[in-house]
């Protein structure tokens, strides 16, 4: 089922979305819907992380930095082995 809504976008955003949708071979609406869905998934995911932290203890600044560094390595194409970050 689809709900029709009227939304307002800044001119430059609308132009960029039009271009991106064209490149991806989907409609303007489908592109916006997909972007919104992804944003909602990120939001739900961060809530999931917070739920786990509420039980297991907050990730420390050191652990967060280690996760970010690991992600950066993987996205740059470098494999890695599991290592442990000491929890303060």
């Amino acid at each position, binding site marked *: 089922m689809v709900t029709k809504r009227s939304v307002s976008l800044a001119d430059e955003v609308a132009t960029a979305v039009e271009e991106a949708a064209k490149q991806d071979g989907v409609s303007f609406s489908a592109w916006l819907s997909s972007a919104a869905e992804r944003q909602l998934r990120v939001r*739900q995911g*961060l809530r999931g992380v917070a739920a786990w932290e509420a039980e297991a203890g907050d*990730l420390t600044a050191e652990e967060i930095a280690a996760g970010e560094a690991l*992600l950066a390595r993987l*996205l740059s194409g*470098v494999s890695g082995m*599991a290592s442990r970050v000491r929890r303060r």
Partner: protein
Amino acid sequence: MATSRVGLVYGSAALRAAARGDRMVWALHRAALAIGIVPVVPASAIAEGYRTEARGDRLAALLAGSEVEVLSGEGARRAGELAARADTTDLVAVEVVEVADRRGCAVVASRQTALRAAAGLLGHDLVLYAV
């Protein structure tokens, strides 16, 4: 030269690690979400995760921020043929590699020969965080 990746695919070992409270896996998951990357999980890995892990609540928390990749009929055929060529019964590992190759993702999984065999057959340069 290393090829960059645009996302992450979780295998069943990644789910297992999260269910058992592996803090690095949770930190990696958080880091991905923080920059708008939603990790991908093949449905078969989810089934395997729930089969082996008692902490379904933790799996659900991780999966809340993940995209489930559902296998199509065509995808199932490709995975089965690839598993046969890789001489493995580990369909989850084969699916993980197939998704990683098709979507340009790095893999979070265990260190398995099946992963490497499937990647080799696809000519895929596997980028793996072995948990």
